[in-house]
């Protein structure tokens, strides 16, 4: 990364930590309300080194990875269908919107009841929450293909499949990646919400443990930090993939 890109980010982070520290000192807050940044940093390092975080981290990552893959994969197919067939769009869109409008927090307990407290329910919840933004972005992207390029394809006798592969998908990619950026961060939310509704392992479980039986507030903050970092790293991965596939236009 170039200096120009990371320097402002580093400055903003330093500012955030300073404000945090200032709030703790000026407000005279006890560590079980808001531990100072250095305590959280120290706890973050020890929790990773002594294996406290690791199993929970792995569980959440597996849920996010599978949930995102399933949700985004289905969304690409359905988004294509929506773009292709106005009838399908009219039939399906009320249900898609309704599914999106019901808060995932309200659905999660039901899904855990149906699919059990293990991996399956978390994958379903993640997939559900990822699905909508990616499906809509795919539909919009595929519809936004320049009609003049489609005419070019027709004049060159491109087959249906060639039109899809060489015109529609490349045109839709920037949109699809926009949806994926939103989707990947939502996938983390989905996993956490799912674990909250019932699980034996995962970063949300660790937060609950830190707050409850362990009463280790710095660990709770260290776990929050881990979740935030997971979101940031996944987001950057999607952006990097987008740069590779879409590039400069």
């Amino acid at each position, binding site marked *: 990364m170039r200096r120009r890109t990371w320097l402002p980010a580093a400055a903003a982070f330093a500012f955030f930590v300073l404000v945090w520290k200032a709030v703790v000192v000026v407000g005279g807050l006890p560590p079980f309300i808001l531990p100072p940044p250095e305590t959280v940093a120290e706890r973050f390092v020890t929790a990773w080194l002594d294996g406290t975080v690791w199993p929970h981290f792995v569980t959440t990552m597996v849920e996010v990875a599978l949930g995102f893959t399933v949700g985004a994969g289905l969304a690409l197919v359905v988004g294509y269908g929506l773009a292709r067939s106005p009838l399908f769009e009219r039939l399906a869109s009320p249900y898609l919107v309704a599914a999106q409008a019901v808060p995932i927090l309200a659905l999660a307990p039901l899904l855990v009841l149906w699919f059990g407290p293990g991996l399956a329910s978390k994958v379903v919840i993640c997939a559900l929450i990822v699905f909508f933004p990616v499906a809509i972005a795919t539909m919009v992207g595929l519809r936004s293909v320049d009609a003049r390029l489609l005419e070019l394809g027709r*004049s060159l006798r491109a087959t249906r499949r060639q039109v899809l592969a060489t015109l529609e998908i490349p045109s839709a990619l920037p949109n699809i990646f926009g949806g994926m950026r939103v989707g990947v961060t939502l996938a983390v939310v989905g996993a956490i919400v799912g674990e909250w509704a019932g699980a034996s392992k995962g970063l949300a479980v660790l937060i609950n443990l830190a707050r409850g039986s362990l009463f280790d507030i710095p660990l709770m903050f260290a776990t929050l930090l881990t979740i935030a970092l997971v979101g940031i790293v996944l987001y950057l991965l999607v952006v990097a993939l987008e740069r590779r596939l879409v590039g400069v236009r």
Partner: protein
Amino acid sequence: MTADIPGRGAIDLRGVSFAFRNRTGEAHPVLDGVDLAVPGGGIIALIGPNGCGKSTLLRVLAGLLEPGAGDARLDDVPIAGPDPRIGLVFQEPRLLPWRSAADNITYPLELAGWPADRRAVRLSTLTELVGLDPAVTGSRPSELSGGTRQRVALARALALEPEVLLLDEPFSALDALTRERFDLELLRLWERSASTIVMVTHSIPEGILIADRVVVLSPRPGRVVADIEVDLPRPRSIADLDAAAVSRTAAEIRAHLADGAAADDEVEPARVELAS
């Protein structure tokens, strides 16, 4: 110069009519009984007022639109849909923005299933043919100048060695001097390839410079109102445009164009047209 090789890109239109339908199903006639014959290897310019159906006529020739009535034939075979024997250059370069210039040029070959090694060989022939600097073939269209982009589009249209090249105001977005240079290069290219060329233009001098015949269409619904022979020896140069014969031809074309007032009703989407 019209090397009349029978069965090589000869176009024959008889009574071709075409109408667009709007949303209420009402028909708007665009072409009304167009008769036009172009011998194989001939080069003609289509000229007419805005909205007279020149582009529509070109699309009928390209097999993109099916005429409502009449008969359109290429080498005595009815034109039924897009045809590999026809190359098309649009008003704007119409390049795929996510592909390099080279990959845009070889796009028709890719669709036709050519393997990569054959495409690469053809690419070098094509870049040479249209005078494209090989150094820029790796660039994306957004990094190229307007003229270079249109060169890429021309190379793409020539990729499958068409017998007929259809050009829809191909150089209208270029400045006057660049346009003249492109017109002359197109002539050189035509002399080498012996393909039939139909060029839609707004410019009388451009039509005279390149064509054997300038065909004048009436305001919408378009029909052929004049078919004027250009009596200029080939090879032509810009200097030829000063000849007395040219002003007579231009005056004649202008008189036919003025016969009909410009059509007011716009059915096609409004387009930016650069007349000169």
